């Protein structure tokens, strides 16, 4: 880096600025939209000059949307709550099941272990629509349709493979001898798992959990088909703003800002783990 000439540094700066602009502009624009009314949003040509309004956020928080065609009840805060419930519990369940499974796959090569691990990974290859329609029928029959439990179960398709594969790589990076050294000093394998393997794989587990949380939060199609309005997360809830009298761009923008805020905050907070965890664990050859 020190050897870079002045010109190189300037060019590099421009390139980075262009990248940042490219990726950040939509977020910036959404943020601007969330403070505008539909009239100013739909101006042509678009302009950055407007009188900011908090009416969009107010409508979301109070759950009452006043449109030209009349008043509409929306339950956005319920959607937000659903997002939190679904994402948190999905990740919790996936960690509870996935981390011990990842340890088993990393440490014990048994007959068919690779096949089982790969089958779990293959769930992520399948397009969600492939499974969601048959699941909708089954869920109707067994009473899991439109329940948190049913959704959390289906969300395992997203979270479990992710956690299993990232954390497995992380466990594989820990020398088994470190665990043997602990076991031979008089500790059971479970104590070794808890006191040695888990803490050493901690950053990887955190990274995998965070990534799974983001994927779960952003999921759309499972909740759209398998849940009704009172169980649906924000991604689906935002559809409510596409009303008979027009699309409420301002409210959609405000909803998007509110819904990305938690994951964004989480990602920024855990950025270090995320980069470290992903580059150390999952990319092992």
């Amino acid at each position, binding site marked *: 880096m020190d050897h870079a000439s002045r010109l190189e540094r300037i060019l590099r700066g421009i390139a980075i600025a262009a990248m940042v602009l490219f990726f950040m502009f939509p977020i910036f624009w959404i943020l601007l939209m969330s403070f505008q009314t539909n009239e100013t949003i739909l101006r042509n040509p678009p302009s950055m000059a407007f009188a900011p309004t908090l009416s969009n956020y107010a409508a979301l928080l109070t759950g009452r949307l006043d449109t030209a065609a009349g008043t509409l009840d929306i339950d956005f805060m319920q959607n937000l709550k659903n997002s939190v419930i679904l994402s948190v519990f999905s990740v919790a369940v996936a960690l509870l099941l996935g981390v011990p499974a990842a340890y088993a796959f990393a440490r014990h090569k048994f*007959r068919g272990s690779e096949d089982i691990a790969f089958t779990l990974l293959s769930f992520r290859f399948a397009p969600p629509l492939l499974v969601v329609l048959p699941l909708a029928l089954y869920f109707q029959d067994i009473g899991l349709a439109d329940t948190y439990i049913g959704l959390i179960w289906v969300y395992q398709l997203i979270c479990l493979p992710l956690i299993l594969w990232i954390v497995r790589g992380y466990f594989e990076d820990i*020398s088994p*001898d*470190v665990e*043997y*050294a602990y*076991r*031979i*000093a008089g500790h*059971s394998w479970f104590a070794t798992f808890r006191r040695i393997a888990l803490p050493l794989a901690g950053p990887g587990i955190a990274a995998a959990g965070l990534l799974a949380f983001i994927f779960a939060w952003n999921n759309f199609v499972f909740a759209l088909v398998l849940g009704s309005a009172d169980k649906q997360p924000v991604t689906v809830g935002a559809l409510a703003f596409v009303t008979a009298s027009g699309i409420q761009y301002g409210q959609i923008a405000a909803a998007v800002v509110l819904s990305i805020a938690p994951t964004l905050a989480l990602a920024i907070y855990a950025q270090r783990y995320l980069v470290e965890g992903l580059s150390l664990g999952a990319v092992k050859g």
Partner: protein
Amino acid sequence: MNEPLLVLERVDKVYDPDSAHPVRAVQGLDMRVHAGEIVALLGSSGCGKTSTLRMIAGFEEVTAGSIRLKGREIHRLAPARRGVAMAFEGYSLYPPLTVRENIAFALKSARLKREEVDRRVREIAHLLEIEDILERYPSSISGGQQQRASLGRALIRHADLHLLDEPMGQLEPQLRALLRGRIKHHVKERGLTAILVTHDQTEANALADRIAVMEGGVLQQFATPAALKEAPANLFTGTFIGEPPMNVFAAEARGGSGRLRLRLDHGSELDYPEDAFEAGVRARMLECRRIVLGVRPHAVSVAAEGHAGPLRARVTANQWLGDQTHIAAEFAGGLLVAVEHHRAAVRPGETIGIAFAADDLHVFDAESGAALSHGGRAA
């Protein structure tokens, strides 16, 4: 019960037994280690010595056979319940703990008093010269320091059996020499029993009471260092033990008129009086169609042409190592190495006379590799 402390009985280890190419790492291993003994498992890479150690520790399953420690069958027990301590070749220190904590955690489960733990950590750190790094973390110390910390973690325990896997591979030569003495003293003083795995003969000779030489998963010989050198049980042990290695020549024996003639493959002939070999040995040598003669480099007498004996060799190299001369020469279609304890004047290209005393001759059956005689006496 006067059983030895550790008994391995017909122990087999097969990796991937169901695959097309199962790996037989250890085969039919029988070994007895007595309390208070230091035993070295010596061999080249892949000879099965580390697999053996890990089976005793409980990190590898025993495919067949049994392992008993203090009369208890341990080969099905969890490592925690076997009563063994181990130092790992890869150090395997626990990264979030300091060196002190790493060494002490081996004791914590024993519920000792804090002062007692501190005292023993200090003692072992002093022994291994790591007092100054006790508060450091494993990632910030060198490989040699990590190795000593790992060794300390094993030696601090009073286990029934201490297993040391290449315990000094990463240390500098001077430190290695110093620690060998100290570790041996520590183990002997406390009456501990230790098995160490090494590929370094010097280390095995210096530390061990008995050495188990392994090759291809099979125990070749289990004896004291002196016995290994003086009476190798087979051709493998003979050529493996000793530095530089033993010179070997294929030969045929012929008797008659009070002499025993050993005809080497390339025409030279060694001629000894019959009574230099015991009668039984003579009979076996004549009975075996092909034999292999072995002579240690130190036992080869070298002299200017025409003096030392009727055998001729052409010198190819002469290296003075500061305290001994290594002379390499072409002999009987192969290479012969002789060691002289003074500075020899011979130059490459010169012809020298060499001789082997019957007392220094090791004779092996060429077919089985089994030793027939050492210095004329039956093996």
